[in-house]
């Protein structure tokens, strides 16, 4: 058992803090209100090497692990970026980079990884569907063999960055569920060019995180060559799973990071704001609820580090990633709730940002999986019968 962080962690935190200082709350308030993609922030992450964090050095990356990705995301979130600190990294630099690194052919790695590392290529990752939700085994999007290639048809929902992505990793069913021994068989991932005329994208109006669009994606008769398959045909589930744990770790980092940001602003405010001749922070009715939630945030952070450490060792980390996600979200939402309360009426004013962080953190109880789906996984591991 060793809690001593390697020396590069302090440097990662320093660089992430510098960037977050430059792209602080006021920047994100403006992007959110204007509904604008933060292209300059994206490019800054590219220049500083964050998009290549998980990519091997020979493809232009920093060859670091999920531990470091969690730390980078959490620091960006906590030091001023809010949800954007995870949001702009989790799909391309997190999931797509891991999928290509772990499952890609040499040609695929050479085509995509250097561009991702440089920040020159945006991916979307199309898993969820209107009918299947986050139960990925029920995907209805089909890939039918056609000569040397495949024809793709289907509909996806809540696909982040689909409006501006260059490429998409598409989760499809190549063999119907009825024809396979277990539902985890028969899925295949495909790399799809978003310029294909058979793809249509329609943004969904949403509650927050409007500095990026989340979309419905319609796929109609999109033909791809066999080489577009990412990993073996019909074995897509096992390739997909490798990306889902990094996604949960990313959202766990977002929840603790946003909570840290909101709590630190509430502490500042509670020290300055005086009512009844004393700073409101001296009243335990103000300080204790935030403090209690914060103890949960600290604990959840440790669980995320454990999950990421296991992932980096090549060990199974599904249980730990789900526990980390569920715990970080419960504690994080609680911390932001009480931080907002400390601001009184000003907690409702956009200029204080905390209402935005409240809207942002509420996504984490719904995505990448609902808290209930995370609890399903944990409950099964605990010995409860599988509920679906």
């Amino acid at each position: 058992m060793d809690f001593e962080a390697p020396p590069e962690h302090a440097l990662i935190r320093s660089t992430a803090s510098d960037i977050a200082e430059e792209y602080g709350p006021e920047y994100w308030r403006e992007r959110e209100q204007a509904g604008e993609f933060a292209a300059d922030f994206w490019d800054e992450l590219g220049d500083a090497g964050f998009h290549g964090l998980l990519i091997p050095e020979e493809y232009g990356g920093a060859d670091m692990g999920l531990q470091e990705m969690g730390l980078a995301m959490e620091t960006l979130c906590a030091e001023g970026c809010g949800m954007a600190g995870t949001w702009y990294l989790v799909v391309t630099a997190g999931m797509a980079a891991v999928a290509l690194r772990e499952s890609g052919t040499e040609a695929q790695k050479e085509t995509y990884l250097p561009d991702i590392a440089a920040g020159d290529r945006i991916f979307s990752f199309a898993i969820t569907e209107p009918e299947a939700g986050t139960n990925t085994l029920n995907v209805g999007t089909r890939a039918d063999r056609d000569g040397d290639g495949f024809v793709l048809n289907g509909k996806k929902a809540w696909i982040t960055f689909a409006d501006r992505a260059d490429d998409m990793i598409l989760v499809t069913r190549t063999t119907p569920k009825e024809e396979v021994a277990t539902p985890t068989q028969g899925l295949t991932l495909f790399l799809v060019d978003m310029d294909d005329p058979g793809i249509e994208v329609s943004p969904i109006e949403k509650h927050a995180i409007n500095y990026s669009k989340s979309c419905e994606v319609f796929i109609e008769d999109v033909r791809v060559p066999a080489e577009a398959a990412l990993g073996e045909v019909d074995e897509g589930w096992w390739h997909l799973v490798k990306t889902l744990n990094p996604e949960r770790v990313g959202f766990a980092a977002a929840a603790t990071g946003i909570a840290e940001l909101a709590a630190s602003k509430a502490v500042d405010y509670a020290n300055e704001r005086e009512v009844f001749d004393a700073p409101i922070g001296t009243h335990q009715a103000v300080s204790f609820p935030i403090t209690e939630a914060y103890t949960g945030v600290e604990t959840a952070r440790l669980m995320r580090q454990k999950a990421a450490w296991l992932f980096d060792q090549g060990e199974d980390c599904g249980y730990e990633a789900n526990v980390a996600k569920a715990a970080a979200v419960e504690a994080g939402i609680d911390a932001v709730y009480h931080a907002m309360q400390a601001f009184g009426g000003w907690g409702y004013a956009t200029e204080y940002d905390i209402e935005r962080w409240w809207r942002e953190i509420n996504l984490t109880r719904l995505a990448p999986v609902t808290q209930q789906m995370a609890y399903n996984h944990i409950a099964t591991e605990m010995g409860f019968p599988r509920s679906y």
Partner: protein
Amino acid sequence: MKVLVTVKEVANVADDFEIEGLTIPEQFLEYDLNEWDDYAVEAAVQIAEDRDEDVEVVAVTVGPERSEETVRMALAKGVDRAVRVWDDTLAEAALVGPTAMARVLAAVAEAEDPDLVLSGVQAADDGFGATGVALAEHLEYAWAAVVNDLELDDETASVRRELEGGVEELTSVPLPAVLTIQTGINDPRYASLRGIRQAQRKELDVRTLADLGLDPAVLDDDLTLTGLARPESESDATLFEGSAADTADDLETVLRDAGVSAE
């Protein structure tokens, strides 16, 4: 070409701190790369990137093991290798003033034989602002202080120096030279994640005074630390609430008490 850049880990003091004797306790301190040295590192790395010939950039620091974090930051930003000087004599010294510090740095510089030494104008914590120039004196190098623009050819550094009152001086300094670098000369880069990764593999030599051929007496200095105190606040403001008519008498009282009168 070889460029030696001196870097220092400086202590930043928390808003509410206490003084114990001649020190500020650790719990009130946070450590960081000295801001001026960050600009010096950037200037050195830019020289290496801009010149056609091979340029080696070496960082030197005098500090405890903790300061390796600061040195790694310089390595992550593009410095090729680093030397850290530390031993019990340095650890036990109550104060290492600029003259003594310059003697230690000069020993490293003599071993490295650089064409150019870049140093920050001053350190953010003790603020002597003299180490770089003292180093030039020891090395018998030409020097220029408070440099805010730098152009280099094979034999000369053409520099712009910041003087008082907005005046700037253009000077040519023959190499080898020591330049003390002012903030604003460039835009220091982030340590990129790739740079952070590569920094872990770069050489970081640790040397003692003995390794450098220095006697502990090298630290003897006429300068001694005799006291540490928080300066008295001289900007207390008195705020009168109410209209001008209501508060004019209060203001008159304050002015009279302060010795201002209309007689």
